[in-house]
């Protein structure tokens, strides 16, 4: 039998609840303990105490206490509710839902429990459960509009559009007169209903509805956009044209509106004259705009293009628009356009502008024009489709001479060095750019990025620290984590990966992974918040976006890198102890290896100790290690990632990154290829083949895929024990379509080469297969690899990949040196081929 409280203690208990609500946790605990002195087994009080402790970050103790509370009072909804809340705090939503359900069975009328349950159902996308909860909540309080809206959302997201619309309409019909115009909630709910109707596919009805309600909706732009969209999709072209015209009058810098207008006007994409007229009319109407002047360059050809490009380039160069080149380079896939632009701008700098006056401002204008033109040419010759780095350098020097304070010019100089393959010089030059404008964070960020590319992690962090809050726990790096600075963490991690410092690399990739978890968790509060605010369309869009959060390129990038790190770790377990010299040759000296390993272990211990000392010093300096909001921030017990890197199961850990990657970015061929690598090593042949098939359907001639097909065939031939019959059957039949068993492999490889003979990466793949098929002819293969450097088309990046290949093949130092020397003489400015 649960213990009862005296009336005095019962009022104390109410106080505990109040303290909790007001986040006065210390007082809450004190009062709870006061009750417990007299009634030590009072379940509800124990539960409240547990809840408060959980909010203070004492998760484990809180759980123990909550269990004790339940033991004392199994029939208390408070105990069950608290139990659920603790699970929720741990993000164990399934258990939390169970606990809430128990609580609700005991106290079916409880609004707070019902609400907490509903929120979790939404978070878990349990739409059927959510519909049920929301129906109950609506029945309890039908006077609240948000209860109606919430039920409609539940139906909508579950896919029942008809029911969603019906719920919204039912509420609307209770309104005798239209709510005041200031009622945003109504305005939004009306548009939401329109969105539901449109999604059901009945655009006629959506348009009709929009026409009848749109005039009193305050989100004017949304109504205009929806209307234009519906009209165009319905083929009501004349009205659609008018609607897009109205949108352009509001915002003439949105190319989607021009696209809509052109479609509505039924203009053929070949009718350049008519198209040009449309854009010209907008350029005339909004002379300061860019889009109507720039878009025609996409479709004009020949002399028309030249004329329009001339006018455009001169105008933008006079204005000194720094993004001019970024805007123009998109045209360069068309070689004629690329050459025309080059010819035009070279013309500007070779024939002095005649402006007929000698006064100072004209001279200055002329100077600005010239430096802009040189700057343009520098970027032009730095761009991969029009590259001539020495010309790029000459032009940037001229631009800098004319305008030595221009940060952008100096930035371009750094970029040119990057393309030369001299990352050290690039970082130095970018640092010079930073010093021109030390108050600007953009150039500061660039300087740090270039330092990371040059593997100068400490210098980069030092630069970053000029704009971070360094008093937070963990200093500048802690602040970059806290502020979710994904780009920096990614670059830092990739830099460590290049240096084979896998612990720190994994540390950064996991940090970004965790940021995505936080972003997913972020939606939780909006399940209730947005209903109160009434901004339903934005909320529904957010929910849908969260469902595809990890298709973001930021995620794909760290996932790919993390998987690479884990593969390295699997293949070379010694790397767990730090960067080790690459295995020198085929007969790696075991004693030598052990010596290096010992040294690495020592270094790792030294670093760990240094880090601990650094932290201790910081702790002592800051007597009060609290962040601004008073929460105690937990210190990271593994700042160097040593625990991560010393995993026993690198491949299993890689799955954490791989699984979402393959789910959300299945079209990323690199993801599929890395998926193959992981699954092959795990001996999961069916999964490995699945990746190959996916990669094959994305790009059948991909060079990485080509090598993997052969490796898969060889792996199947060499199985130590046969595959389970069902697996074997599937694998055989599916793989047959990619690389038939009867296929002569050397012929297959040769035909791959002849089909892709103008591509060095394909040649690399061909040679790798050669190496796999005839390992005994390695010296010849190596020589052939070196000869790929003679090709005029080979890029610096590809050449570097060639050097990595020699590593993969286990080639000896001599072969590597020969290759590197040859590459060095081809790219004398580059430092990338220095053999460490």
């Amino acid at each position, binding site marked *: 039998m649960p213990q009862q409280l005296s009336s005095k203690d019962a009022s104390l208990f109410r106080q505990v609840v109040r303290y909790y609500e007001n986040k006065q946790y210390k007082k809450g605990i004190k009062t709870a303990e006061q009750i417990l002195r007299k009634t030590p087994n009072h379940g509800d009080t124990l539960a409240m105490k547990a809840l408060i402790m959980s909010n203070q970050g004492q998760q484990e103790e809180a759980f123990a206490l909550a269990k004790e509370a339940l033991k004392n009072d199994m029939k208390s909804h408070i105990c069950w509710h608290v139990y659920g*809340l603790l699970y929720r705090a741990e993000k164990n939503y399934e258990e939390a839902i169970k606990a809430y359900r128990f609580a609700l069975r005991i106290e079916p009328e409880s609004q707070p429990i019902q609400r907490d349950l509903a929120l979790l159902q939404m978070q878990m996308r349990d739409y059927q459960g959510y519909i049920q909860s929301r129906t109950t909540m609506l029945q309890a309080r*039908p*006077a609240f509009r948000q209860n109606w809206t919430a039920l409609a959302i539940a139906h909508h997201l579950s896919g029942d559009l008809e029911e969603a619309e019906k719920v919204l309409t039912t509420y609307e019909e209770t309104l005798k007169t239209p709510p005041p115009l200031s009622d945003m909630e109504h305005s939004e709910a009306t548009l939401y209903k329109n969105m539901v109707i449109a999604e059901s596919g009945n655009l006629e009805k959506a348009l009709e509805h929009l026409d009848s309600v749109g005039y009193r909706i305050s989100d004017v732009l949304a109504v205009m956009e929806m209307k234009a969209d519906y009209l165009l999709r319905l083929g009501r072209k004349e009205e659609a044209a008018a609607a897009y015209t109205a949108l352009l009058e509001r915002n003439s810098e949105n190319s989607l509106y021009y696209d809509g207008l052109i479609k509505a006007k039924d203009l053929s994409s070949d009718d350049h004259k008519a198209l040009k007229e449309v854009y010209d009319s907008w350029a005339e109407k909004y002379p300061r705009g860019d889009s109507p002047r720039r878009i025609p360059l996409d479709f004009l050809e020949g002399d028309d293009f030249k004329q329009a490009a001339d006018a455009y380039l001169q105008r933008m160069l006079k204005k000194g628009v720094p993004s001019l080149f970024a805007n123009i380079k998109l045209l360069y896939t068309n070689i004629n356009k690329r050459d025309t632009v080059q010819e035009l701008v070279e013309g500007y700098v070779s024939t002095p502008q005649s402006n007929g006056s000698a006064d100072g401002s004209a001279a200055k204008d002329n100077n600005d024009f010239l430096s802009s033109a040189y700057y343009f040419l520098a970027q032009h010759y730095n761009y991969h489709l029009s590259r001539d780095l020495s010309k790029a350098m000459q032009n940037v020097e001229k631009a800098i001479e004319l305008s030595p304070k221009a940060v952008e010019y100096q930035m371009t100089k750094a970029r040119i060095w990057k393309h030369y393959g001299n990352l050290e010089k690039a970082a130095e030059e970018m640092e010079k750019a930073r010093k021109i404008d030390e108050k600007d964070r953009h150039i500061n960020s660039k300087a740090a990025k270039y330092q990371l590319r040059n593997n100068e992690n400490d210098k980069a962090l030092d630069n970053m620290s000029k704009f971070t809050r360094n008093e937070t726990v963990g200093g500048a790096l802690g602040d970059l984590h806290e502020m979710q600075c994904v780009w920096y963490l990614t670059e830092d991690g990739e830099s460590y990966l290049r240096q084979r410092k896998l612990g720190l690399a994994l540390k950064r990739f996991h940090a970004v992974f965790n940021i995505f978890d936080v972003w997913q968790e972020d939606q939780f509060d909006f399940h209730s918040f947005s209903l109160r605010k009434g901004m339903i369309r934005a909320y529904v869009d957010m929910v849908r976006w969260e469902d595809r959060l990890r298709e973001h390129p930021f995620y794909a990038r760290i996932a790919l890198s993390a998987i690479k790190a884990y593969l390295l770790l699997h293949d070379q377990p010694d790397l767990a102890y730090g960067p080790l010299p690459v295995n020198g040759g085929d007969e790696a000296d075991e004693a030598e290896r052990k010596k290096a390993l010992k040294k690495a272990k020592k270094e790792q211990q030294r670093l760990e100790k240094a880090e601990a000392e650094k932290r201790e010093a910081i702790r002592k300096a800051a007597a009060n290690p609290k962040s601004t909001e008073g929460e105690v921030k937990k210190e990271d017990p593994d700042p160097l990632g040593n625990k991560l890197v010393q995993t026993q199961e690198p491949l299993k850990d890689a799955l954490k990154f791989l699984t979402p990657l393959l789910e959300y970015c299945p079209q990323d061929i690199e993801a599929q290829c890395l998926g193959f690598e992981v699954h092959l090593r795990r001996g999961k042949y069916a999964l490995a083949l699945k990746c190959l098939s996916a990669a094959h359907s994305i790009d059948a001639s991909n060079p990485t895929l080509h090598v993997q097909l052969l490796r898969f065939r060889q792996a199947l031939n060499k199985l130590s024990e046969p595959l389970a019959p069902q697996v074997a059957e599937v694998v055989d039949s599916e793989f047959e379509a990619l690389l038939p068993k009867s296929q002569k492999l050397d012929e297959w490889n040769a035909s791959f080469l002849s089909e892709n003979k103008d591509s060095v990466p394909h040649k690399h793949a061909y040679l790798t297969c050669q190496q796999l098929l005839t390992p005994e002819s390695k010296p010849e293969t190596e020589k052939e690899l070196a000869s790929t450097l003679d090709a005029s088309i080979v890029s610096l990046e590809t050449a570097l990949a060639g050097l990595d290949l020699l590593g993969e093949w286990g080639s000896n130092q001599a072969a590597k040196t020969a290759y590197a020397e040859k590459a060095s003489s081809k790219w004398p400015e580059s430092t990338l081929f220095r053999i460490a």
Partner: protein
Amino acid sequence: MVDILPLSSYPSYIDLLPAIQTCNITNLPENYFLKYYLYHALTWPQLSFVAVVRPRNGYKAGNTVAGEYPKVVGYVLAKMEEEPTDGVQHGHITSLSVMRTHRRLGIAERLMRMSQRAMAECHRAQFVSLHVRVSNVAALHLYRDTLGFQVDSVESSYYADGEDAYAMRMDLSNMWLDWAEIERKDRERQASDEKDADEGDEVGEVGKKEENEKEKEKMVRVKVGRSLGVGDLVERNEAQASS
């Protein structure tokens, strides 16, 4: 070429938020959690805009940018003052930034004008306010000379590094919607509805309003800062264990 797009009304480009956050932290010292951007996008979805680079050959889907993740080169993050001390509805620019590689195209001006118009139309904002570093000549020029803001006051040590800010504002009432006209249309429609009105059906039983249950949602104080997320915005009785 740069396109100026709405962030989270219609169409919704809310998937650009991570790139907007990156744009912010690359350019400015004042940074926020993603949740703070979400909070803006979901509370005032009409007020924020984003500038993106149109990909080569346009957008793949044709009529939408969603799911394409183009490069973000600028944004304006804006809100309404939640509890104006003087009771006057007004908007506030939380953050505005354009990559320095994309300056001189008028992007910041256009972002500001779009946001200001939305504040006036959607929220009947009397004015819009913002803060700007006293040393930021270019921004000051934009706000004062191009857009027509006026300096309201100087707030000393407004920024974390100790720099002062100009508090600026600009009147927006000239862009308000004509409510009288809309109400006239309301009356017109009602009159024509009544002419051909049927007897209205009784609505479903759950739809019956209980007259006295017009509970007003408790006003909730909302405090937001650099390190506060919406977690702190949730009303206090959210996780109430008993009542």
